[in-house]
């Protein structure tokens, strides 16, 4: 019983000490704020100019982040949220917790995107990553379904890339999505709860391909000097994941929050993104992308459902996925 008053006391002391400098609470997903993500560099860079203390509060992934905001509701301490994606935006907008960001539109996306509440800070194409030694990489989902290649994917009910894949098939094939999934069924070795389990299984040699991003091979090339990985280019196009940030309407630091969003899309923060988050920056970099990114595949066509479409068809698309694979 001692712990509660004691920690409350600690919390009081901490907030008294912090009253000197304003605190900006940024909610984000784990890997953004981790030692290897863009978080530490962005925190350092922003604190140099803001005369404030930037604090990251983390939740597992984009979906957990949104769930946490919904749990906290209007009493949330969050000022800014970094790391939702376009498939979650409709649900996020419906909470009514977000305010207009007021920033100029970003210009580095492969497809036009503008939203009053959500500001893109990076993006990537979903893709199946494989070893270059793979003899005949598939050129489409139908190709893949006809092959006997083994793939690992993530569950759309517990993972944002998993949901992205379901949306990809839906955007590319519409009403034929169920049929495509039925064809893919015998290629799917297993479905994992999250991205890291699937990627781990692929690296262990349990599958020929794994659902990830076109930028994943850049990690192996740049961080590990390993050029054996590549991604398969699909003719029907690649679905986009656009990661967005937003400002909370109930923020007690609205001015700092605006300044942070401006910083997040500035050259300083954007140049950190490619080799920490392993995604493309939302604004073009003056010096261009880091060396190694030029080796990545460039999909000719980008697919993206609008957030209204994505929000409206999500449940039905997941049910279709589930029905096709559960037979």
């Amino acid at each position, binding site marked *: 019983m001692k712990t509660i008053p004691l920690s409350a006391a600690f919390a009081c002391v901490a907030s008294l000490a912090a009253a000197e400098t304003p605190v900006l609470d940024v909610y984000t997903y784990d890997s953004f704020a*981790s030692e*290897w993500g863009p978080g530490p560099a962005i925190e350092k860079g922003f604190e140099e100019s803001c005369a404030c203390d930037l604090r990251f*509060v983390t939740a597992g992934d984009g979906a957990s982040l949104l769930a946490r905001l919904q749990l906290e509701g209007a009493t949330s301490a969050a000022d800014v949220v970094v790391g939702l994606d376009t498939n979650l935006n409709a649900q996020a907008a419906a909470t009514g917790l977000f305010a207009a960001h007021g920033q100029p539109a970003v210009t580095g996306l492969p497809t036009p995107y503008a939203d009053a509440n959500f500001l893109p800070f990076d993006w990537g194409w979903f893709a199946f990553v494989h070893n270059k030694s793979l003899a005949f990489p598939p050129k489409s989902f139908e190709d893949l379904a006809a092959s006997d290649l083994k793939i690992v994917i993530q569950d759309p009910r517990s993972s944002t890339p998993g949901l992205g894949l379901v949306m990809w098939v839906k955007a590319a094939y519409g009403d034929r999505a169920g049929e495509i999934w039925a064809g893919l069924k015998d290629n799917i070795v297993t479905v994992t*709860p999250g991205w*890291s389990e699937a990627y781990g299984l692929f690296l262990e040699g349990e599958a020929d391909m794994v659902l990830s991003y076109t930028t994943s091979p850049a990690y192996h090339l740049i961080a590990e000097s390993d050029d054996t990985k590549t991604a398969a280019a699909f003719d029907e196009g690649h679905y986009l994941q656009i990661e967005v940030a937003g400002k909370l309407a109930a923020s007690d630091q609205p001015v700092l929050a605006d300044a942070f969003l401006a910083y997040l899309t500035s050259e300083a923060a954007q140049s950190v993104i490619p080799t920490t988050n392993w995604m493309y920056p939302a604004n073009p970099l003056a010096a261009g992308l880091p060396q190694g990114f030029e080796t990545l595949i460039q999909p000719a066509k980008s697919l993206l459902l609008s957030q209204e479409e994505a929000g409206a068809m999500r449940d039905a698309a997941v049910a279709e996925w589930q029905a096709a*694979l*559960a037979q």
Partner: protein
Amino acid sequence: MTARATAAFFGLAVAALTLGSAALTAGHATDWSLGPADGAALRFTLWQAGLSALISCLLAIPLARALARRRFAGRALLIRLLAAPFLLPVVVAVLGLLAVFGRAGPVNAALTGLCLPPLSIFGLHGVVLAHVFLNLPLATRMILQSWQSIPAERFRLAEALGMPPGAQFRHLELPMLRGVLPGAMATVFLLCLTSFAVALTLGGGPRASTIELSIYQALRFEFDLGRAALLATMQFALCAAVTLATLRLTTGAVFGPGLGRGLEIPRPGGWRCGLDAVALGLACAFLLGPLIAITARGLPALTEMPPGVWPALARSVAVAIGSALLAATVGLCLALSVARGQTWLEVTAMLPLSASGLVIGTGLFLAVHPAIKPETLALPVTLAVNAAMALPYLFRLLLPETRTLLADYGRLSDSLGLSGLNRLRLVALPRLARPLGFGTGLAAALSMGDLGVIALFAGERTETLPLLIQHLMGAYRMEAAAGAALVLVAASLALFWAFDRWGAKHAAA
């Protein structure tokens, strides 16, 4: 406070943590309905948990018997090593199993060499294989514990009377098994009931969906608190039903007190010796193979670990020791009370087994927010929840021994007027030291590997080692994660062994 009141207090605290958190979650719900696939998830959950429990316990019998009646060099070490799979964090265990049974593993290499078709580990059989791998050690220890509680004098008497193996089994071993098996099976069943990552990763697709996955989906993706609370209630109802059924099926085996002189069980020779050797050999290969694979993966990566591993390890160890001691205190108190007749506490003590870590986390979150920042409570909350989660194991291990203790020494203690702390120190603790040490070690190791509540509460500077491993894997650093996982496994085992050793040392003969 009297012992009775203390036990009731602990019972209520556990109920508040489990049922209360589900109620709080439900209190914030706006809609009450199950999803379309929840029925199928329930069926799959029951099916895989039932199979896993049955197979784990059946395989545990010959293994426990071999361990109970054979003495060989390295036996004590083997018993300790065999506990390891149960203590592994799930992700690590899955990767270890894959290294052995996966596409590129030695089992499939051997099959290909023999021109046989390769074996896929993915599917219901993969889920059951993983659950047996994780739970066979626990079932074995529970049964072994019971085997050792038959006074060796009884076996010697049976030998002297010329009883054949069949008759010995009927008169001595079968009654003992009837006493321990229902509880062991129920424990494994309930444990597999809340399986999430194993079932999904090895299940091969959405057919292998469990209730816990539905809860995750409801809480994280749909923010449907009503559905999550309904599903959690379903798990609790199953837990209560299974525990009550176990209560009715369990018959206390009464062998009477032995001399407590530590005589050894006779070791029958001939074919029974061969049988024991086969059981031990197969179990070693099955349980130790993946462990060796994990070690082989982790060792070269030890140099690549980030410095953050050490503070994370220190935090994990501190939380583990705290929660283990708390769980031991509560478990001992509840077991003594249940043995004395407060049976409602038995169901309460088993509740955490079927509690969804996610729902507990969500309930606690709602309880403290917005009065206190959840990050400031991350470690105390993890400590308390981990203690509650480990309670059922401790309780299950202690209860049979406590019943025997009361049956054998209760009247003697009463007539000597021994009560309170003196009775605890002089009579109970020496008799219960072995299961208590084992159970406390188990609680510590389980807490080390836990990734439930901390993920919801963690903030800066409260990262535990399992969370760090997850972060490493999320940042493509699979090798560094393998190194950190090896550190985690080594630390878990060391903690477990330390407590287990204490128990063995202080056990009365």
